[in-house]
């Protein structure tokens, strides 16, 4: 039986990827950001997951106003790195796990979630930056990745509660897969930030830290955060935090906090990061 053993929450700020790609990680501005992931890299290298499920949002890269799915699962063999306007990031393509991905699709759709099945999809910084901060700069990623996309760009976007329930459905799907696989699930994006308008640069440390605390001790409390509250309290793009709810929903109610990191700023954004392990794993 396959099993989700741990969850990783992390921001996916594109500038973090650019800092890595351009060899700027040692600069005073960036050093504390990467220091916050040192322990995480050691943790995941030791854990050696067989597969990672990475929940992220497409930033109008594979999708556009032509089509924008609310939820989708990558079922392909391989995903190229998107050119977001400055050329693709110099990182390896992402290899998928079609067997488990199709199994998840089969199970989760039967659990009332209507997924978009994505076979051909360029992946952007939303996926590649979390891989970079967790795995560094290898010539190929150490395990297959199943991308799970969530629309947080074109409103209406799904609620945090719906995302949490999707996490539960994904967990159920993984646990009914007939091969022994150790799976880690990533929830990415956030934390507080706003990229556009006269209020750009908004950061709310209290909101972010309360969200992190709840994630560990009282995940249900985060489910009541409305879209309006995310936007008003933590900036327009803080809505990405609903994707952390997918990750949290896929874990046990009781978890151990392995690592936490919070830092302002990276570009326009508060960087948040947490690692949670299921107690019984």
């Amino acid at each position, binding site marked *: 039986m396959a099993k989700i053993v741990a969850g990783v929450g992390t921001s996916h700020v594109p*500038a973090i990827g650019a800092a890595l790609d351009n060899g700027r990680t040692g600069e005073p501005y960036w050093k504390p950001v990467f220091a916050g992931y040192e322990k995480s890299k050691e943790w995941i290298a030791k854990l050696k997951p067989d597969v990672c499920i990475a929940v992220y949002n497409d930033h109008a890269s594979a999708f*556009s106003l032509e089509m924008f799915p609310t939820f989708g699962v990558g079922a392909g063999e391989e995903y190229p790195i998107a050119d977001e306007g400055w050329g693709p990031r110099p990182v390896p393509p992402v290899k998928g796990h079609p067997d488990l991905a199709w199994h998840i699709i089969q199970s989760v759709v039967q659990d009332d979630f209507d997924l978009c099945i994505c076979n051909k999809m360029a992946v952007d910084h939303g996926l590649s930056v979390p891989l970079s901060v967790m795995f560094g700069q290898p010539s190929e990623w150490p395990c297959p990745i199943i991308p799970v996309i969530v629309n947080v760009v074109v409103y209406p976007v799904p609620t945090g509660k719906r995302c949490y329930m999707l996490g539960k459905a994904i967990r159920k799907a993984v646990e009914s897969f007939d091969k022994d696989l150790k799976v880690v699930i990533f929830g990415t994006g956030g934390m507080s930030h706003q*990229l556009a308008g006269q209020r750009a640069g908004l950061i709310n*440390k209290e909101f972010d830290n309360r969200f992190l605390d709840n994630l560990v001790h009282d995940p249900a409390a985060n489910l009541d955060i409305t879209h309006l509250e995310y*936007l*008003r309290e933590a900036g327009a793009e803080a809505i990405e935090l609903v994707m952390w709810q997918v990750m949290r929903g896929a874990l046990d109610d009781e978890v151990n906090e392995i690592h936490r990191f919070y830092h302002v700023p990276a*570009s326009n954004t508060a960087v948040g990061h947490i690692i949670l392990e299921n107690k019984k794993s």
Partner: protein
Amino acid sequence: MPINAAYEDIPGTVVFDMDRARQGYHLNMFCMTLMKPENRVAFKANEAEYLKQFPMTEAQAKAILSRDWNAMINLGGNIYFTGKLAATDGLSFQQVAAKMSANSQEEYLQMMLAGGRSVEGNRSKSEWKNRG
């Protein structure tokens, strides 16, 4: 109007809702073409001519040509789409955010280093009434 537009009360913030997604369709789809290097070259070679391929409004085209980032957003542009235009210009998301919300790049950088823009006084349009 969207069913719940309470977010219209948030100051200095444009939510990419159904009205904006419809209004900004062609502006945003122009931005999508900038994901190809040959299109970036063609756009840079003659911006006004390139924009003629897209049935956007005059005001939208003017906002693009003058790089009025707030106007693009107010006319239905979305930051992840206009971000492709920014990248084509060699600008980062931070540089564009500074252009939209601060007097200078340095002022914005310092604000972020000091912990970012506080939510205090920035939750509701009623709090911005007395701003110049």
